């Protein structure tokens, strides 16, 4: 008897879900699956939600499993398109069966976030300090390299607990790309990729995992996308850019970093803007891309995706600033609009 009741309850819940998902409309639901970066997850989840309100028959299901996951699942064909902070280099592109187009969506910044009990000021990090810490050469908070840049701040005599990503991450790519540019040692020993052989540190899964770890571990230092540090109310440091100024990651400094990018992007839309020239440019930022196959056989999905991309580049950009992402420069949007026609 209780068994029968249980079975009845389950069946009714399942039929309810079927009803809910059809929502009494004439058209059937288009479900589009995407996987990829955690870096832009806050803005993407906002976009997909707003877009769903505008077009209730379209559900875009985004799972933030990391840029590496987005790339891999796109290659395996298990998702409709992917999201990655790391653009695919030519060698990687050649392993795909279809041509892949890169559509930059927003600009984001990666910041060094830390948990230092007793220190309230924003710490200043030089490129050499960051490289040294992540190479394992600088191990104490009150090391000379840090103390020199932060005169006046009482740095504790504690070991730095380094935190990095344990999954394949575009945020990692941006971070290691920057470190490779500023530290020849890093470039030869570790290199830049979505997943690297870290000399030191704990691994957290996703931007969420890293910010969670930093939040819970005193004396730790990690790198996360700006919005994660803001939402978690974690202090983050200012970084010295190529002009020698210590710059805080803000919408303006991120936009400044992308200032010169549009010209290069006309040739190849995959451009690295880490350590960008410019007095007020924040040195660790990046475009983040949606990886769209140039050929989409399902016409409904193709049109939906094209419509979404168009919306994203126009109305969608309105939502970026509230979540601390910098919108795309107009010149970049123009390039992308032209690329939109390439999706067949």
């Amino acid at each position, binding site marked *: 008897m*209780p*068994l029968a009741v249980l079975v009845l309850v*389950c069946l009714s*819940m*399942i039929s*309810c*879900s*079927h009803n*809910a*998902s*059809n929502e009494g409309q004439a058209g059937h*639901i288009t*479900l589009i*699956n995407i*996987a990829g970066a955690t870096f832009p*997850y*806050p803005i993407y*989840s*906002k976009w*997909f*939600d707003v877009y769903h309100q505008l077009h209730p028959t379209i*559900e875009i*299901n*985004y*799972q933030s499993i990391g840029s590496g996951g987005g790339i891999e699942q796109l290659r*395996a*064909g*298990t*998702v409709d398109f992917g999201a990655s902070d790391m653009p695919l280099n030519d060698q990687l592109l050649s392993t795909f069966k279809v041509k892949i187009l890169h559509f930059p969506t927003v600009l984001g910044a990666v910041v060094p976030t830390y948990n230092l009990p007793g220190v309230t000021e924003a710490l200043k990090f030089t490129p050499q300090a960051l490289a040294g810490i992540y190479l394992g050469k600088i191990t104490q908070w009150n090391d000379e390299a840090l103390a020199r840049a932060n005169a006046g701040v009482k740095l504790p005599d504690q070991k730095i607990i380094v935190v990095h990503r344990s999954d394949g991450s575009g945020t990692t790519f941006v971070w290691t790309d920057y470190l490779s540019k500023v530290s020849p040692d890093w470039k030869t020993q570790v290199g830049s990729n979505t997943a690297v052989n870290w000399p030191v540190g704990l691994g*957290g*899964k*996703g*931007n*969420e*995992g890293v*910010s*969670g770890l930093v*939040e819970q571990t005193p004396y730790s230092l990690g790198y996360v996308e700006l919005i*994660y540090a803001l*939402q*978690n109310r974690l202090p983050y440091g200012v970084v010295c850019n190529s002009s020698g100024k210590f710059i805080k990651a803000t919408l303006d400094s991120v936009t400044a970093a992308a200032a010169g990018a549009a010209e290069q992007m006309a040739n190849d839309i995959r451009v690295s803007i880490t350590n960008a020239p410019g007095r007020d440019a924040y040195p660790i930022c990046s475009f983040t891309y949606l990886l769209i196959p140039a050929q989409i056989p399902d016409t409904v999905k193709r049109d939906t995706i094209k419509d979404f991309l168009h919306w994203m580049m126009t109305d969608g950009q309105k939502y970026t600033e509230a*979540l601390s992402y910098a919108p795309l420069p107009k010149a970049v949007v123009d390039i992308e609009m032209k690329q939109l026609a390439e999706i067949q």
Partner: protein
Amino acid sequence: MRYRAGWRKTVNMLMLCVTGLCALVTVSVLVLILAYLAAKGWHYLSWSFLTQLPKPVGEVGGGMANAIVGSGKLLLVAAVTGVPVGLMAGIYLAEFGGKTFSFLVRYTTDLLNGVPSIVMGIFIYTIVVLPMGHFSALAGGLALGVMLIPIVVRSTEEFLRAVPGTLLEGALALGASRWRGVATVVIPAAFRGIATGVLLSLARVAGETAPLLFTSFSNRYWSPGWSQPIASLPVMIYTYAISPYRSWRQQAWAAGFVLLALVLLVNIGAHIILSRRYSIQRG
């Protein structure tokens, strides 16, 4: 002589205390854990949690209605695929088994039971997800189904063997063929036990997360049909628990509470049904 006796008595009392302490520590740690989860989970449980879809990152509110139903759908697929296989194999081992085949089946059932759940996920990924081209509720359900086969086999065989041989012999004496006897006498006699074994196996796989990670994936929306990615309670708990958003972590507790409540209900129910069965037999 008296000294030796005294020493042995002391040891006796000491070991009684030590083992009692072991039991106490074990039980109290476990009870505290359950209580903590219940308290935290109940605190964050709300009607909106049970009925709403997930909200975008950072926004307060939203729920896991799709994950609750998703888990239900996955279990349905698992039951449909795994239970018949397990039942039939259990019947084979208990009633019909030949020597070599029985050994083979038992050995591989044990082997299958020992497969780590993450390896099961890899297996279903290679044979279902890749050929299908995408993640699906079907793949997730199959992974869970294969995992529950060994449990069902073992409990079916056990309960069938527990039926006194005299019942079957009585049927045979009346002229029934063996299969008729098994089907109409032995299986009904063992039915309660087998049914609870099936329910317990479902409760066990309901909490599995690892095999679902790359088979059913996850979904922020309702998942119609069986060939789309689908949300499930364990995966949502995992995703939300390691996130930095407070409202998500609270939802993880609530989801943990729901999952645990369902699993425990089934287990307690099974316990009651089985003990009632024995008391009926005794009385």
